[in-house]
């Protein structure tokens, strides 16, 4: 499968490092040195994955992410030198799927790239069931469609996968680690903040009052539970 990856970074050495490693492993890589360039390329070509640095001249990674997310569910990995949780949360809020903190090695890069692409592969969660209904929430597996109180809700692949996983295990309290490994991939396990952000986004989309959740319950220090 020929996948197109867009790598955006203002630092040439880093950009080249990512490009070379992906190209040698069979990906087609396009590069950009700032957000504006990246958007231009994204709009003209079929991109399957975006790897983007935050701090860049002219248009930074977060703004670019936001704009890409407005028109596409393409997986986005953020590169950041900050490592501060506030920045990660902001990246997730704007629609990033994952992030890598500089410096990172080839192994991490490839692991995240694969995991993100796997989650984005819509066929993966398709299973025996065709439809799952819990309370007012209805999920059509085949069409990746989610209806809440009769209205269609737009979810990213990761959000969709997370919701399906939680709904399938409705009533059980699922530990952070278990959820992360099932939804994000086996490489994950410690990234509890991912869950916090995603559960928050899901609540915004499916709960009537996100601050008094009816379906998605937090078990402090343990994990989450879906009630339906």
């Amino acid at each position, binding site marked *: 499968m020929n996948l197109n990856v867009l790598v955006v970074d203002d630092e040439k050495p880093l950009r080249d490092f990512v490009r070379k490693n992906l190209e040698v492993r069979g990906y087609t890589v396009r590069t950009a040195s700032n957000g504006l360039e990246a958007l231009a390329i994204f709009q003209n070509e079929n991109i399957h994955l975006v790897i983007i640095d935050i701090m860049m001249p002219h248009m930074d990674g977060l703004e670019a992410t936001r704009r890409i997310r407005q028109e596409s569910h393409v997986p986005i990995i953020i590169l950041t030198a900050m490592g501060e949780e506030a920045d990660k949360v902001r990246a997730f809020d704007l629609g990033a799927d994952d992030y890598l903190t500089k*410096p990172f090695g080839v192994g991490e890069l490839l692991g995240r790239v694969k995991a993100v692409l796997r989650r984005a592969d819509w066929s993966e969660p398709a299973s025996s069931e065709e439809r799952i209904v819990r309370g007012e929430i209805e999920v059509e597996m085949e069409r990746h469609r989610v209806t809440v109180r009769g209205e269609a809700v737009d979810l990213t692949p990761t959000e969709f996968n997370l919701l399906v996983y939680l709904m399938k295990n409705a009533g059980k309290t699922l530990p952070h680690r278990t959820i992360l490994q099932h939804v994000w991939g086996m490489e994950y396990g410690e990234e509890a903040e991912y869950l916090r952000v995603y559960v928050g986004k899901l609540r915004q989309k499916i709960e009537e009052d996100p601050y008094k959740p009816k379906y998605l319950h937090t078990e402090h220090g343990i994990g989450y539970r879906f009630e339906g």
Partner: protein
Amino acid sequence: MRRWFAFHRDLGLQLFALYLLLIIPFLITLLIFDGLIGVRIREDVQASDLSLAQSISQEVDLAISQALSTVEGLSVQPGVIEANTDEMQRVFSIIFSATPEVNLIYRLDANGIMVYHFPEGPGSTVGTDFSFRDYFQRALLTNQSIVSEGRISPTTNQAVATAVMPIWSDAGKFLGLIGANIRLESLSQTLTTVISNQQSEGGLQVVILDSADQIIAYPDSQFLLRPAIDIIPEQYLSNFNGASHSQIVDAPDGEERLYTHTPVSSIDWEVIVSRPTSAAFATQIILRRIVVVAAGTFILIGLFFWGTLTLRVIRPIERLAPISEAIGSNQPLSDAEQKHLQSGSKRNDQIGHLIRSIIRMKDSIAERMQEQATLLETSTAVVSSLDPETVLDRILEQMGRLLSIKMYAVIALDEEKGIFRIRASRGLSRQFTEQLSIQPTEPDSVTMRALHSKEPIQVSDTETDPSYIIRRHRARVEGFRAILAVPLNTQHAPPTALLVFHPTPHVFTQNEIQLLTSFANHAAMAIENAMLYERSDMRLREQTHRLEALVQSLHDGLILSDLNGRVIYANKRVGELADLSTKSLTGLHADQILARIITRTADKTNKRSDAQKLLNKKGERKIEVSLSQSDRPVHLRLEVFNVNDEDGAPIGRGIFFHDITADRELDRMRSSLVSTVSHELRTPLAAIKGYASTMLADDVEWDRAAQHEFLTIISDESDRLTNLVNNLLDLSRIEAGSLKLLREKCDIKETVHNAAKQARLTQKNKLEIKIKEKLPVLYADPPRLESILRNLIENAVKYAGEEAGIKVEVDRNGKDFHFRVSDDGPGIPAGESQRIFESFYRVDDSLARLTSGAGLGLAICQGLVRAHGGRIWAEPQETGACIVFSIPVKSGTKSNHHKKIRKKTSQ
């Protein structure tokens, strides 16, 4: 205990006790003596009475015994036994004449019939039966002679007692008896004789009683044969028991008498001697009277002395005590006390003397008190003001009042001119007061002498006093003859003295001087107080001014309000914050000002209500608000605090507007620095880690060229990291002011090229370097200069893009070299060109963070340029950005030896 104290306190009691101590032993002695004498006298009287009674008893006994022996003798006469009348006549007549006390001798026959009696006439009772007589009955039973009871003889009609002898025949037949009547009167005569012998003892009474207690003998014959009870108290009679004894008993007529009796031994008769106790114990009674009189006299004398003592000495002294106490405590005396003193003072004795001296003391105390009161009053008046002029005025006013003088003055050192001048005066001519000036060195001036000796000095007559000769003229003109100078004991005020003038020669008395000296002490105090107050007042005002200036120039705002919230004080900063003039703030309500300030916050509604809550809360509270003032953000921390007085009671409220903008900025910069540094370091690290891990990955085999490329990048990035770290160190040294430049001759061309080489230009970038010919030698720190240029070129690449054209120009402008780095990129946004050099400032803080580390780079550039003595700025141009920095042209080098060190360190 209390009595003991009372005794010790009371002189009267003590004297009384002393008197008793003297008199009681004397009286006791008298009483004992009286008792002893009394017993003696009683014993003597009793003994003499007893002996008298006994002698009478013996005499009676003798008479009776004679009668008895007579009748016993007759009873054996045959003529008598036979009752022969003739014989009996003969015998009886013989016996009769021999015994004068017998007045009748007779013979009764066995039947008690009178046979014969002698003398026979006048009334014969021959033939009369006397068998009823007691002696006849008793004679029938005995052959002994007996004595009958006393009775009246029918034959002689006289009181008699009869000696009787029964006559018995040899055959034992009773033949009758023979009796001889003893005339009781004759016994009584004996008694009368005895009594007349005892004439000295008045009231002596002697009685003889027979066994039937009839009076047998008594000087008064009327009482004969009457019962004893008529003259002897029954009480005494009932106590007879044979033995003789004495007793004092009241006689029937009520008189107390001493009775003594003794029995007559041969017959059952009693002799009783009695005499009135008054007579018997006359000596004792006289003695006792003497004792009583003596005791009474002593007591009377004692009482008299005591009374006199009390009245004349103790009472006056007692009354003097409270008076002298009252005088001591200066209390008014009552009328009675006055009168007492008055009358007491007339006495000539010691008490009078004492009272007179007390009166003198009282007058002198009153006088002194009056003086002190005046002094106190005047002193109080003097010290009641703190204004120096008023104080002087008062001093003069009160001096006149105190001493009733007309001319006086206060003289003091004029510190500026160094001479003594009159500061204020009364009754002196203007000419005198204005012209009088005394040099402190004048030795014989009265004022100076007083001030030097610190004692009052007087000249009692200016005409005669030799020390006053020079000034005599002055005195004559002014019209005074005596002068007194009293120094004031001042420490903080200039030396001062009081001067008193007298128009006539006058010796100022000790009292006057003393009074004036006391007054001078108070006056000195008043002057000093006024002086110190003036100074402290000035100091306080100065301090207040300073404090106010300080508060006014505070960068922080301060409002002080009263308890109702009305503003008492607000400083300039508050005016600026509230956009009001500082003056108009006072009187406003603190809430109004606060509301006005808060109106300018970013989120008004919340802050306003928060601030309102803050004001309404009790105790210390804080809130932070952010305002914009002149389009600049201002962060304030409002702190409300209670203003309390010394006791902790609230008297108002303060609001402090602490400007924390700088703190906030610093905080922001600090966190910005950390994240910037972190980012700057991570960027090269990311490349290093990335390529190293790429080469280590097992799944891909890289060719040699690629490997070489990767290692080159790793090496370059490591250098970049090193540079970065050095730059950071430089930056921190710049911030700390400890950066030391090593200036040396610097090849401009080489430096620029080196910088360009390291600046990560892409192949598409077009770099143009223009260095003016014939530039002077540049002395600079080459690595630092290189850093500046590299940073600027890197920034140009970053912002203008990888295909941008970059131009580096160097030329000279006056005394400076100018380095210019420009690009053809989008340029610097308008209004940002000044701020981009602020440390860690990034052009936009919000979403579009344009740069990665540009702030740090420019900040480093600026620091290094300034360290070289130059400056850096952004120069506006039509397209792209242009940063220019200047380095002054300087001749010579300071430190060649640094070169070596430098080379070593850079290796």
